[in-house]
C-alpha cells in the first residue's frame, strides 16, 4: 500500500465521518455496501457501524459488518458480528459459512468438549430457529389452549375434541415454553464474548499478577461466567477457565 492510497483512505474516512450524521439506516447500509464493493473495507466498517448507531439492526447488517472487519484483518470483531447475525438469523447458510470460514483463521483452535448430552441435545433443537420463532410458536399453542379452555369452561362446550385438544395443548405449551425459555437464557442471559486482541493473556485469577493460564488469540469464543473489577471470568470451548481483561473481550 503506497502513501497515496493511505492518504486516500484517510480522506475517505474523514469525509464519511462528516457525512454519516442524519442518514437513515438504509442509506448507511447501502453506502457500506458500495464501499465494500469498491474494496474500501475500512470505510465499509465505518458505514455499517454508523448504521448500527441509528438503533436498528438486522442479520444482514451484522453479516456485512463482519465481512468488512474480516477483510480489514480484524478476525475478532468479524466473529463478534457474525455471531450477532447468527443470533438474529440462525438458519442463514451464508452466515454459518463465513463464521466457520473465519474460525479457521484463529491461531489458537479449541475443540468443544461435550459435558452434558441433554443440554447439547436441547441446543441442537433450539439452535436452528430464532428466538422470535420459538416465542410465537409457544404463543400460538398458548392461545389455542386458552381458546379450548374458553370453549370448555367459559362457554361450557365440552366434547371429546375440546377435551383432547386441551390435553395436547397443555403438553405443547409446556414443551414450547420450556424451549423458548432455554433459547432466551442461552442468548440473552448467558453472556458470550469473543477475544478481539492479538496478545490476550488468560490468567488464573482476576489480576495481572496471577499466573498465566494460557494465551488466547483473536476470534476465540468464550462464555463469560462473571466479573471481578476489570476482569471477566471466562470459560473456553474446551472447558478451560481463566480470567481475562474485559477490554480484550467483546460481548455478543
Amino acid at each position, binding site marked *: 500500500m503506497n502513501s497515496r492510497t493511505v492518504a486516500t483512505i484517510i480522506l475517505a474516512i474523514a469525509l464519511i465521518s462528516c457525512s454519516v450524521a442524519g442518514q437513515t439506516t438504509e442509506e448507511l447500509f*447501502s453506502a457500506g455496501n458500495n464501499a465494500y464493493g469498491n474494496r474500501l473495507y475500512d470505510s465499509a466498517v465505518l458505514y455499517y457501524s454508523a448504521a448500527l448507531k441509528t438503533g436498528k*439492526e438486522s442479520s444482514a447488517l451484522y453479516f456485512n459488518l463482519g465481512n468488512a472487519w474480516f477483510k480489514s484483518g480484524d478476525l475478532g470483531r468479524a466473529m463478534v458480528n457474525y455471531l450477532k447475525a447468527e443470533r438474529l438469523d440462525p438458519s442463514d447458510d451464508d452466515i454459518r459459512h463465513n463464521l466457520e*470460514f473465519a474460525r479457521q483463521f484463529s491461531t489458537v483452535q479449541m475443540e468443544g468438549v461435550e459435558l452434558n448430552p441433554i443440554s447439547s441435545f436441547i441446543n441442537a433443537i433450539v439452535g436452528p430457529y430464532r428466538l422470535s420463532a420459538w416465542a410465537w410458536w409457544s404463543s400460538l399453542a398458548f392461545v389455542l389452549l*386458552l381458546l379450548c379452555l*374458553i370453549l370448555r*369452561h367459559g362457554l361450557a362446550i365440552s366434547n371429546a375434541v375440546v377435551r383432547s385438544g386441551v390435553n395436547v395443548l397443555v403438553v405443547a405449551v409446556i414443551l414450547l415454553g420450556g424451549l423458548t425459555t432455554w433459547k432466551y437464557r442461552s442468548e440473552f442471559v448467558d453472556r458470550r464474548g469473543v477475544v478481539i486482541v492479538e496478545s490476550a493473556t488468560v490468567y488464573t485469577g482476576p489480576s495481572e499478577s496471577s499466573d498465566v493460564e494460557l494465551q488466547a488469540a483473536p476470534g476465540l469464543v468464550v462464555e463469560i461466567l462473571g466479573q471481578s473489577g476489570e476482569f471477566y471470568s471466562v470459560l473456553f470451548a474446551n472447558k478451560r477457565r481463566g480470567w481475562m481483561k474485559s477490554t480484550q473481550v467483546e460481548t455478543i
Partner: protein
Amino acid sequence: MIRNAAIMLLFAFCLWAVAEDVSAVPQTINVQVSLDRDTIGLNEQGILTVVLSGASQDLPVPQIPQLEKFEIYSQGRSSNISITNGQVSSSVTYRYLLQPLSAGTFVIDQIAVVENNQRFKGNAVELTVLKSGTATPKQTEERSVAPDGKTKDYFLEAVVDKKNPYVNEQVTLTVKFYTAVQHFGTPELDEPATTGFWTEVIGNSAPYYQKVNGRNFRVIERKYALFPAQTGDLTIGRATLHATVASNQRQKDPFDVFGDFFGRGVEVAISSDPIRVNVKAIPDAGKPKDFSGSIGRYAISAEPDKRAVDVNQPVTVKFEISGTGNIKTIADPVIPELPDFRIYRAATNESVSRSGDKLGGTKAYEQVFIPTRPGTLEIPAISFSFFDPSDSKYKLASTRPITVEVRKPEGYIASPDVPFSGGPDRSIGSGATDIRYIKEASSGFTTTGEIILFQPIYLVVNGLPVIALIGLVVLRKRREHLSANVGYARSRGASREARRRLAQARTLASSANAVQFHTEISRAVISWIADKLNVSPHGLTSDQIQELLSNRSADFALITDISDLLKRCDYARFAPSSVSEADIKQSMETAEQVMTRIEGVRFE
C-alpha cells in the same frame, strides 16, 4: 600357503584388470572457445577464452594458431579439479587478449590441444572488427586527456543511450570506469542522483579492454535503467568513484626501497559529468480511450484454470502482460462489468527480467470470475493499450475470449438478487477459499436489542385470551349461581324494586298526596325486607315482619323503627287530613334510614 598364493594371484589380477580398464578408456578433452563480444572496434580489445575439460588432472596447454590480424597476449589461466564418485574431472580456462590490427570479419577456428598423439579441436568463433571504432566516441577521447595534454591514468564517464526519450521510456545510463593503471581492492561508487526517474540497477558488466588515445584501458561498466517520470529537462547527477590506484609517482624517500615493489596505492575520487535529458510527452494524437499510461512493448494473454464449472463456483483466469518496459508501473487491464459474473481480484505478481540492457518482465493478475447463472458464458477479449516508443505509436494487445461451460448443480435455485445464497456450496471444506459476499438487500431492520418476549404486542396477544377466559368463567359462574338460587337473585334484585318505590314516594311527598305517599313508603319498606328475607311481600303485616326480623336476630332498635314506621304509614292512610308536611318529611327520612340499615344486615 597355496590358498594365500591363490588370493594374491586373484588380487593381482584384479589390479591388472582395473589398470587395463583405465588405460582402455580413450582420453577425450573437450575444448570450448568463446569471445566476450562478437563485435569490437579497431581500437578495442577482445577477450578470447578457451576452456579445456576432461577426465585428466593434467591437461595440456592449447595451441593457439598464429592469427595474422591480431596480436595475442596471454592473460593467464585458472583451473578447477573435481572428483565425483572416484571420477576425476578437471577444467582449465585460458584467457587471451586479442588486439585487432585491421578491420574485417575473422573466424578463429584453429585452436586445439594434442594429447597422446590425439588432436582435440575447439569450436570456431567469429569476430567482427569495425574500422570506425564504435566504442570510443569523441567525448571519451576528450575525457581521457588531462589538462596538461597527457592521457589520464584513470577517469570516469557516464553516458546515456537516449537524450530525448518519452516519458516512462527506458533510458540506459552507463557509468564506465577506465583505468590504465592497477587498482587495489574494490572501487566504491557513489551512485548518480536520478531525481525524476524511476531507477533500476541493471548491474555491472564483466571488465573489458579498450584503447583510448593509443593507450590501453581496462573498463568496468555499471548500467542503470532509468524511466523518466515527468516531462521536461531532467538532470542525471554526477557519479563519483573512490578507488585506490597504483601511483606512478616516484617515492621521495630514498630509503623506502619497497615503495615500488608493493605498488603503493593512492586514494582518488573521480567524477563523471552530469547529463541533461530532455523528456518528451507522449503524443495526444491517436491516443486510445482506454490508454492509461503504459509505455513499452507488451503482449497480453489470458488462461482460465478450468473451462467447466458449477454455478457459483469460481474460475480463476490468469492474465499475463509481458514485454519490455517499466513493468512495475503498467496499468492493470480493465475488466468490464459482466452481467453473468461476479469478479474479484485474487492476486497480482510481477517479475522483472532483462533482455540485453532492456528491462522488461511479466505482470500476472489472477482474477476470479464467479458465474451467476448456468449456460455457456463468455469472458470477452480483454484489451490492453500501450504506447510503443520505439516507433512512436499507440498499440493494442488483446486476449482471446474465453468460453466457460457453466453447469447447473443439483438443487440449484436461481437467485439473481442475492449472490452466493442458496448455492450448492453448503459444506465448509477445503473448497472454500473466501468468505461469502455481503448481503445487499436492505430490509428487515428491527430496533436493536428488542426481545420479542417483552414486546407489548406479544404480551397483549398472550394476555388477552387469559382475560377473556377469566371473564367468561366468572360470567358463567355467576349465571349458574343466579339460576341455582332464586333467593340470592331476589336479594340482589331487592334494592332495585325498593328504590324504585322510594323514588316514586319522593315525587308524591306532599300533604295533598299523603295517602299515596304513605302507601308507596310502606310497600317499599315491605318489599325491601321481603326480598332481603326471601319471603313473599304479599300480605306481609307489620307483626309478621317484626317476628321474622327477630327470628333472624336483627337489631332490636331496627325492628322497633321499622314497626313504628309501618304503623305511622297505616295511621296516615286512614287519617290523611291529620298528616302535616313535617310528618311526610320525617316518614321519608325514616324510610331511607331504615332501608340503609337493613342493607347492611346480613341475614342467615
